[in-house]
């Protein structure tokens, strides 16, 4: 391994994409409206595509002859570096929408900033992913507004979703040691610089949706360093089943 910090930095983002993509894929065939079933599958597909770019780069940095799949499939829960938000269950459509919205408000500003990375590969991954993130935030933001403003029931469900997930919003923009170092070395994003934009976007959309922005700033954290919720183990049980049952084969 030549650069452990960069490897971990890349893994954090790879794992975010993979786990959120895996979660969204659970909706496939079960969406509330056929068009939205397609939209969620499409976002899942984008995220898996992004995860692949990240894992391929991780494998190159690691330089031990491993493939994207070796890295994606063959770690235990403590080795995954995704934020806690993305492993939260789909819940109802409101919860899925709000989880997506919190991720998208982070990822579109994150990728926007990462396009200026001193590392060309990271800048290239960011450029491609940013285009997709802009589409995702349009979709999730529109749905936050539709559901918040729609009927009494949809409003109440959005309120519940915000309550359920708000404590996972902070981890996204609070740098851990890896991110701080990555920023120092010039290839990582300064999360404090995107915090304001992100918070403003959340406020703007929630207000239009007639929803209140919670005051609490308490944030569950630990995911980025491998300390997860109980949910991740089950996600991995599904994800890794074939690779674990039949090790080392081509598929």
């Amino acid at each position: 391994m030549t650069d452990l910090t960069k490897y971990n930095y890349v893994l954090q983002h790879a794992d975010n994409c993979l786990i959120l993509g895996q979660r969204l894929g659970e909706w496939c065939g079960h969406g509330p409206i056929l068009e939205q079933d397609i939209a969620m599958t499409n976002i899942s597909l984008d995220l898996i595509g992004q995860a692949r770019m990240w894992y391929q780069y991780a494998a190159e940095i690691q330089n031990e002859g491993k493939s994207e799949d070796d890295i994606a499939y063959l770690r235990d829960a403590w080795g995954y570096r995704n934020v806690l938000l993305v492993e939260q269950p789909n819940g109802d459509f409101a919860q899925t929408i709000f989880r997506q919205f919190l991720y998208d408000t982070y990822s579109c500003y994150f990728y926007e900033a990462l396009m200026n990375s001193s590392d060309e590969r990271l800048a290239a991954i960011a450029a491609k992913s940013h285009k997709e993130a802009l589409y995702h935030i349009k979709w999730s933001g529109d749905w936050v507004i539709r559901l918040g403003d729609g009927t009494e029931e949809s409003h109440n469900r959005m309120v519940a979703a915000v309550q359920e997930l708000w404590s996972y919003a902070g981890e996204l923009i609070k740098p851990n040691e890896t991110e701080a170092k990555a920023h120092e070395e010039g290839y990582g994003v300064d999360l404090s610089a995107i915090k304001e934009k992100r918070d403003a976007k959340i406020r703007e959309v929630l207000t239009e949706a007639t929803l209140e922005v919670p005051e609490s700033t308490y944030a569950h954290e630990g995911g980025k360093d491998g300390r997860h919720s109980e949910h991740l183990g089950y996600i991995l049980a599904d994800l890794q089943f074939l690779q674990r049952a039949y090790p080392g084969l081509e598929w």
Partner: protein
Amino acid sequence: MDIKSLEDRFNEKIDEDVRIEPKDWMPDNYRKTLIRQISQHAHSEIVGMLPEANWISRAPTLRRKAAALAKVQDEAGHGLYLYSACETLGVERDQLLQDLHSGKAKYSSIFNYPTLTWADMGAIGWLVDGAAIMNQVPLCRASYGPYARAMVRVCKEESFHQRQGFEIMLTLCKGSEEQKKMAQDALNRWWWPSLMMFGPTDEASTHTEQSMRWGIKRFTNDELRQKFVDATKPQADLLGITIPDKDLKWNEERGHYDFGEINWEEFFNVIKGNGPCNKQRVDARKSAYDNGAWVREAAAAHAEKKSKKQAAA
């Protein structure tokens, strides 16, 4: 114009292979038959998402996961085109969905079988999408314009699915003993249900003659089934796995493969609702619909508020 001359003009168009379009006059039965056929196809696309979606979370590599997502998404898209084609005949998607949920409308019986191993993702693409193509390519020339045009788009994607499924099978067949066993097992389970996808024998088929006359069916069930067997047997040989039919042999005289008797009792049982997954499939569709009701209501309510605001501004 009186009914007689309208009917004559309609028949002339059919004879000259001129497409019938939504605004054209058409006999009631033609419209009804089309609605039944197209909606049944649309339902098959969306129910057909379920058995394959069952393996998305467990796809063995990221590349396969992405391909599985893309495939199931394509099927949803096919459902959309076909519901839209149906709507041009004057029936709303919501009504069609109610008919699916109540059991009044049918969908392809093949999707009432379970996906038990990863190899089923290969077998479905190879055999089920393969059989679908046999059925559907002739429909690109169907007499009803919106249907024919939908089928052109659908068929392009189905043939991609078929190659992708075959490629999954090929990878398994070139793999370990266990993988090869998985592939054989999947072929054993999917072969006969795939042959059943072409429907009852010509003798037993009730709609064929009229539908051929109307140009919304171009070949008989038995003709298509034979075509499928002829195309698929060499592919199974290439994979090195065995089609589970001891009567399957090349018939020099006919220039076709002979094959064994289909278990029609099983076929009619599955149609009646007694297949291994009939209940699960319809329940899954119903609960997606019922749990989505508040979402659809919210979207409608928001759209109305928005248009009122715009009107006031």
